[in-house]
């Protein structure tokens, strides 16, 4: 997802309304339900628009190629087969998967850690000219479509002798993740009561300890949100691997999908099986961290 973003954060909201309670929302929600039947109708229509392609992917990936051409495309197969998935695995899926995991974890963990430290510095010591400038720089990064820097990036990676390595994907991914991560994390660190910092300082803790033992645990929801969000972005990145790698041994999943499409051609069930396999891990992550991701994102952008 190219969220080259600019947070022009929003609402002048009352602090009490930041994390609304169930009760408050209940009555507001009910009012809005009656208020806007148009929203209800569009929601149901949209539900089907979203779900039909997804449903189609799932049932088709379980059909044989000949069955696919004969049957109604929206009817699930009578005799589901896993052959398509086997075919995808026989075409080095595992290798591409491992590459994707290495790149995703290898860039998101450092990106979130360095962003957290920077966000902490900006909030706790933000009057300094240096930190104000750093913060300004990151905010500008949100307004600029960073993908447009791909050509100089390509040159830089060649000069660093990193072309066609996984590190060539990891290093720029860290940089691209920093602006939004700092912004979201800073918004949450700002909410940690100053008295907590003061009382721990009085007890003799230094900033390093405050950072990891106070701010880190207290901003954990935001950290989880931004980690999942960055994992999604890096996992789905297409342009960086397309330009910065060339050998199949360094291929990540989105790029592999593109080549599968050329390779499997009109074997639609196999193509869709490969789509499904690339989505499954991220779907698992979504199921585990859905609340965190959705509530965190919506709070992070509207704070």
């Amino acid at each position, binding site marked *: *997802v*190219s969220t*080259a*973003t*600019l*947070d*022009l*954060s*929003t*609402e002048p*909201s*009352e602090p009490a*309304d930041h994390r*609304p309670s169930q009760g408050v929302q209940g009555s507001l929600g009910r009012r*809005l339900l009656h*208020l*806007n039947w148009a*929203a209800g109708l569009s*929601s149901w229509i949209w539900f089907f628009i979203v*779900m039909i*392609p997804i449903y*189609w992917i799932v049932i088709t990936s379980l059909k044989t190629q000949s069955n696919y051409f004969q049957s109604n495309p929206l009817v699930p197969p009578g005799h589901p087969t896993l052959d398509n998935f086997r075919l995808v695995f026989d075409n080095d899926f595992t290798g591409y998967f491992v590459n994707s995991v290495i790149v995703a974890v*290898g860039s998101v963990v450092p990106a979130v850690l360095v962003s957290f*430290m*920077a966000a902490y510095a*900006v909030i706790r*010591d*933000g009057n*300094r000219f*240096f930190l104000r400038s*750093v913060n300004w*720089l*990151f905010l500008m*990064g949100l*307004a*600029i479509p*960073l993908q*447009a*820097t*791909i*050509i*100089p*990036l390509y040159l*830089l990676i060649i000069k660093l002798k990193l072309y066609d390595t996984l590190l060539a994907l990891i290093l720029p991914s860290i*940089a691209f993740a*920093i602006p939004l991560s700092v912004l979201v994390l800073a918004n949450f660190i700002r909410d940690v009561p100053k008295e907590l910092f003061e009382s721990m300082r009085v007890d003799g803790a230094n*900033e390093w300890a405050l950072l990891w033992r106070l701010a880190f645990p207290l901003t954990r929801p935001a950290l989880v949100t931004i980690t999942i969000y960055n994992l999604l972005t890096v996992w*789905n990145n*297409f342009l960086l691997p397309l330009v910065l790698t060339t050998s199949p041994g360094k291929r990540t999943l*989105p790029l592999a*999908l593109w080549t599968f*499409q050329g390779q499997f051609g009109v074997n639609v069930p196999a193509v869709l099986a490969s*789509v499904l396999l690339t*989505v499954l891990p991220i*779907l698992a992550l*979504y199921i585990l961290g*859905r609340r965190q991701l*959705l509530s965190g*994102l*919506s709070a992070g952008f509207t704070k």
Partner: protein
Amino acid sequence: MTAVAQPARQTAPATPASHRKRQRSLSWLALPALLFFVIFAVVPLVGVLALSFTSWDGLGAIHFSGLVSWRAVLSDPGLPHALWVTFLIMVLSWLFQTPMSILLGVFIAGQQRYRGFLSVFFFIPLLLSSAAIAVTYKALLDPNFGLGAGLHTSWLAQDWLGNGKLALGVVVFIVSWQFIPFHSLIYQGAVRQIPRSMYEAAQLDGAGRMRQFFSITLPQLKNTMITSSTLMVVGSLTFFDLIFVLTAGGPADATRSLALDMYRQGFQANLMGQASAIALILVLIGLILALLLRRIGGRDRTGSQLEGA
């Protein structure tokens, strides 16, 4: 990587003794992030400007060539076309996504169970890569092997990606399919922050529900609309992977947007100088649009962000 994740403490600037009352500087904590960002984002950004004044084929030596690349790009009839395509995708997808996202956002801001159930599914497109979405829709819309052919519906079995006007419409639809969930999420968050007392006051004044929506909900969402629109507009400049996999810019350049033009000039025609000039145009358009939208918002949010820091 781990070495980078743990900043060396000795990078901390010495604190002058005279500042004993002030806390020690925390600037060193921002250094690792700054370092990454400068090397892999700021340097390449400056590089775009520099490379646009050179000739480079992507492999050999880089030569300074003054305004040659710029002249070639600005006199190429492909540029106004790519600008037009980019503009169309931007405006049409904004027009489709914004009302839809507001409606859905308002709807899922409620707490009923089934809304939660619906919203679980709403966000699935958010999880898919543009490549996966493009591969899926390419198969789904195939006139011979797709959904339309299987259902024997001639309307759905059109050659969607083979006709220029249809293909552009398909791109706009898929972009909306992919990003509406994200924007409705932003609106959901904003709707939940509208103080309940405003609705109560309006009810006391006898305002109907439609009236409440248009005179409370919508105005309260103004700033969110600015945020969301900025994301849509700046984001739409860089739809590359979706179009690349779906149509590769075709048919006959009908979906050849600026970002795609940049890639083709650079990595297919090996004209890195010209591609960099196009990239710079992209960056400038993004910045100008972001600033314009902020003007409409009426407040310098970057400034207030810093103030709050």
